[in-house]
């Protein structure tokens, strides 16, 4: 089967799921449904190609470890929503964009270029705080929880366990 062929029903199913998850957590999909479904189709293509939903608007390496920060929703979505009213792809938009008060456009890349990646000072906590449990932070949405291990799936943004980092 050609990788680019995705059944309309499959696109619609994922679109509905992402729409529900977004709205239930205070996020919004781009109201330009045709554009948005194009991106949803690309997410399905990338999931088949790489085994995970890599950002359609960035070049994935195909190595899960190196692509973790750009698995949709990416680590950059929320800062970009705050600053530009849309994520890099404009799959997710702010409430102002959803209501048509502001337009989503092509925005600068927040992710570091390949040569500089991995050099960022780790924000991970040291655990020297005398807390009875470690605190884990979801790198996608900032959700914090104090427990032995992060949850399998972020209850807020549905990011997977490997997107959590030790915060305190």
């Amino acid at each position, binding site marked *: 089967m050609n990788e*680019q062929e995705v059944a309309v029903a499959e696109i619609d199913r994922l679109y509905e799921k992402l729409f529900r998850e977004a709205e239930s957590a205070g996020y919004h999909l781009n109201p330009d449904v045709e554009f948005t479904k194009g991106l949803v189709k690309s997410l399905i293509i990338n999931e088949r190609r790489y085994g995970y939903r890599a950002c359609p608007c960035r070049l994935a390496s195909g190595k899960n470890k190196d692509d973790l920060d750009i698995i949709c929703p990416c680590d950059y979505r929320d800062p970009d929503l705050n600053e530009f009213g849309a994520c890099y792809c404009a799959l997710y938009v702010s409430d102002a964009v959803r209501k048509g008060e502001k337009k989503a*456009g*092509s925005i600068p890349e927040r992710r570091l270029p390949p040569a500089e990646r991995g050099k960022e000072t780790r924000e991970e906590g040291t655990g020297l705080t005398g807390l009875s449990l470690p605190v884990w932070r979801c790198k996608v949405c900032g959700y914090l929880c104090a427990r032995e291990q992060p949850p399998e799936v972020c209850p807020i943004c549905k990011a997977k366990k490997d997107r959590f980092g030790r915060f305190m």
Partner: protein
Amino acid sequence: MTVVHIPGKKSRHIVLHALSTCGWCQRTRKLLDDLGVEYDYEYVDLLQGDERERAIKEVSSWNPSGNFPTMVIDNKKCIVGYREDEIREALQK
């Protein structure tokens, strides 16, 4: 698949480095199609091995961030992202 040539009005020498899955890359291609100009494009995500390395290097040489779409006009000017006004203006002159 490597570089694809789209015939059209001869204007500038346009090379569009893009991703097959990217919404802004699609918009940029549509703009060029609507303008009816001649251009070459390549989908870097569909390239493999040496070809992919070559394409990534070329994009980085114009645009150190290495993001897409990166459009190179006349081997001189580079426009990153779907910047409709900027693209229209660059192609008019």
